[in-house]
Structure formats: structure tokens, C-alpha cells
């Protein structure tokens, strides 16, 4: 097994291309324990820790490198100003000070866990995922990138170098519902003007349009309930924490709270 601590993205991409079965390590919070337990047995490891991907660049879109930690999201004035939803999300990440220093938004996207914080929020913010390979860069809307539960749209030889998120300084809200501090999120809701996006109800984030005139609690709850009623059985998410039936029942309220939070900010 070879281990590459890449100094540049190009070096990482080259190491990736050369490996039969590589493991890309970003923040490490998910894959390092799995590696230690032998649940992942890669041929090679490509570690991005020194590849210079921990920068936040302001512009018409805010660009977050793949190694930007939740703590950076919390302390970045740009994020606080332009992407308050992410600031709020980062302040509630499970695992204490340490995981905020180690976990990354891009890592969570690549894990594509339906029950995690990031997917619904990234969809709400219309993030664009920057995927690199030896062939070049491809930009993928996050809704497409999250192809299915635990299934990111990543081909062999590809890695995510960052995300671009259009500034979204105004009206937005983020509410997650979890059962205890140790618990992963059960239902999340990210509200931006015109829609609310739900995590934890289906294999991929669910977008529910919320017209500007229908942001009262009853309208939001009813829009979400209708959306979930129409969701195909094969998409309904369930895990150890809660069955689908529970998620269906609480999601309208979580969505309404996210929209209410957004309205309060307005």
C-alpha cells in the first residue's frame, strides 16, 4: 500500500489515477476509523491534508476548498456574511470542538449520507461541486452530485476539490432535528427564498417549493406533507434512529421551523 500526502491537487490527482483502489482522505472523521477497523481496504491512500485545499475564497460565489473545516466556516467573516445558513449549520455540528476542527463540508457531501447535515443545506444553497481528475475539472450541481444514498457522482480517478456556493446573505434558515447530542440528524430542513429542502426523509434531499405568499406555518406544513405523501416508497428513508413513518410525521414541522427562522431573519 502506498500513502501519498499530496502537496498539490495535481499530485493528488496523479496518485489517484495510478491506483487500482484508492482511498481519498479529507477530514478523516469517517474514513480513518473505517480504515482502522478494516471496513475499507484500499490499495493506496491519497491524503489531501497538505494539498492547499483549506481556503475560502470570496467572489460572486463563495468557494470552499475540500479541506475547509466546520471551524473555518464558523470563524470566517465571509461565510458569516454571505452564507449565514452554513454558519448556523457549522455551529451545530456533532462531536464538539474537535470534530469542528476536523470535519469538512466536502467530506460530508462525498459521504452523501441522507441523514447528515450537509446535503439538504448544500442543495438549498445551489452549491456546485468541483470535481477534478486527470482529464480536467467538471462542475456538477450538488443535486446531481448526490446521486443516491451514500452514492456521490464520482468516477474512478476523480476527487472533489471544493464547492462553489452563490452568495446567499439574506433570508434563510436551517433547522435540524436530532435525538440527543450524540445522535446524527434525523430530519433537516434548509429554507431559502422560494423553497425548503429536506434531508433525512429520502435517499437524497427533497426540494419543496414554498411560494413567497405561502410562508406561514400551515402552508409550509401542508406543502411538505403533500410532497412526502407523493414520495415513492422506494425513496423513503429509514435508519436505526427512526422509521419513515416518524420522519413523515415530523418533517412538516421541521420545515415550518426553518422557514419561520428565515422569516424572522428577514
Amino acid at each position, binding site marked *: *500500500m502506498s500513502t501519498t500526502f499530496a502537496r498539490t491537487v495535481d499530485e493528488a490527482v496523479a496518485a489517484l489515477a495510478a491506483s487500482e483502489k484508492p482511498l481519498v482522505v479529507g477530514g478523516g472523521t469517517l474514513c480513518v476509523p473505517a480504515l482502522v477497523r478494516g471496513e475499507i481496504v484500499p490499495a493506496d491512500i491519497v491524503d489531501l491534508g497538505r494539498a492547499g485545499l483549506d481556503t475560502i475564497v470570496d467572489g460572486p460565489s463563495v468557494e470552499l476548498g475540500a479541506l475547509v473545516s466546520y471551524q473555518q466556516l464558523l470563524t470566517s467573516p465571509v461565510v458569516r456574511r454571505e452564507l449565514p445558513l452554513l454558519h448556523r449549520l457549522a455551529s451545530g455540528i*456533532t*462531536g*464538539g470542538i474537535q*470534530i469542528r476542527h*476536523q470535519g469538512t463540508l466536502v467530506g460530508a457531501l462525498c459521504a452523501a449520507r441522507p441523514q447528515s447535515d450537509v446535503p439538504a443545506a448544500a442543495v438549498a444553497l445551489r452549491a456546485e461541486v468541483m470535481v477534478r481528475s486527470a482529464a480536467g475539472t467538471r462542475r456538477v450541481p450538488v443535486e446531481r452530485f448526490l446521486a443516491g444514498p451514500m452514492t456521490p457522482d464520482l468516477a474512478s480517478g476523480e476527487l472533489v476539490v471544493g464547492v462553489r456556493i452563490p452568495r446567499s446573505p439574506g433570508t434563510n434558515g436551517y433547522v435540524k432535528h436530532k435525538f440527543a447530542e450524540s445522535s446524527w440528524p434525523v430530519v433537516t430542513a434548509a429554507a431559502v427564498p422560494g423553497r425548503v429542502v429536506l434531508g433525512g426523509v429520502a435517499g437524497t434531499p427533497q426540494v419543496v417549493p414554498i411560494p413567497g405568499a405561502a410562508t406561514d406555518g400551515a402552508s409550509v406544513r401542508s406543502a411538505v406533507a403533500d410532497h412526502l405523501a407523493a414520495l415513492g416508497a422506494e425513496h423513503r428513508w429509514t435508519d436505526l434512529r427512526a422509521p419513515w413513518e416518524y420522519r413523515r410525521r415530523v418533517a412538516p414541522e421541521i420545515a415550518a421551523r426553518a422557514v419561520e427562522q428565515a422569516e424572522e431573519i428577514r
Partner: protein
Amino acid sequence: MRLQVDGVTVQVDADPEDTLVDVLREDLGSTAVRAGCRNGDCGTCTAVVDGRCVKTCLVLAGRADGARVDTLAGLGTEAEPHPVQEAFMAEYAFQCGFCLPGMILSAVTLLDANPSPTDAEIRDALSGNLCRCTGYVNAVRAVRRAAGL
């Protein structure tokens, strides 16, 4: 690889795919980081790596090459304990003591950034560390005490 652990530069011959907690414990004999879950949950492997308070069971050793690692062992001495150490001892904030690397270093990190935290902020800052002995009551008191609140 080379590390500076609690101010002392050391050279270690470790597998780069080992985790930092194992390098510190197995190769360097540290007792000030511990393995409780190897899953990033319990916090007892906590150390401050290049100024960031992290769980070392989640860090590949090779990534830490050249890093400065500050552990609980380097924080204070028995004659002159760090104020957070002193507060944890004075408030009986631990029983078995197994969780202390994470508890104390999280508290130090919190107070460095926020010298007058609220109770909610204290509890949030300690939330990366599990303790089964104390119910956290005295740990929260200890952080308050260290903050002079």
C-alpha cells in the same frame, strides 16, 4: 517522521497509515492520549495539533509529519498546574480520569477563544468528550471556576 511533542522534537519510524493516537502511544509511550473508541466519539485521544484541538484517532500519522503536538502532559506541572487542570482537580470534576485529555484540552481551547463562556457554551464545548462517571456536573463547574466565573 518528525514531531514536536510537548516541546520536544522526536523522530519516529511509523507507518504513515497508522493513526496519530497510536504513534503517540505505541511509538512514543505517551499516556496523555488514550484510545476509547477509535471512532472520533469519546474524545480521550485529544491533542492540540498545530494549534487545533483534534481527535488524534482520526488523523493519519503521515499527515502530522512535522507537526507540533501538544498533549495534556505538556499543559502544566504538579507544582504549577494549568488553571483548567487546577479547576478540574479542585471541583472533583473527574472520577476515573480516563476522559481527561479531551475534557481538559477542550476546556482550554474554549477559554482561549471565549474567556467568559455561558453554561450552554461550556456544555457545548465539552460535548465532544464522553464521560460515564460524573454526569458532567462538576466538569461544568470546573470550567466556570477556571474562567473565574
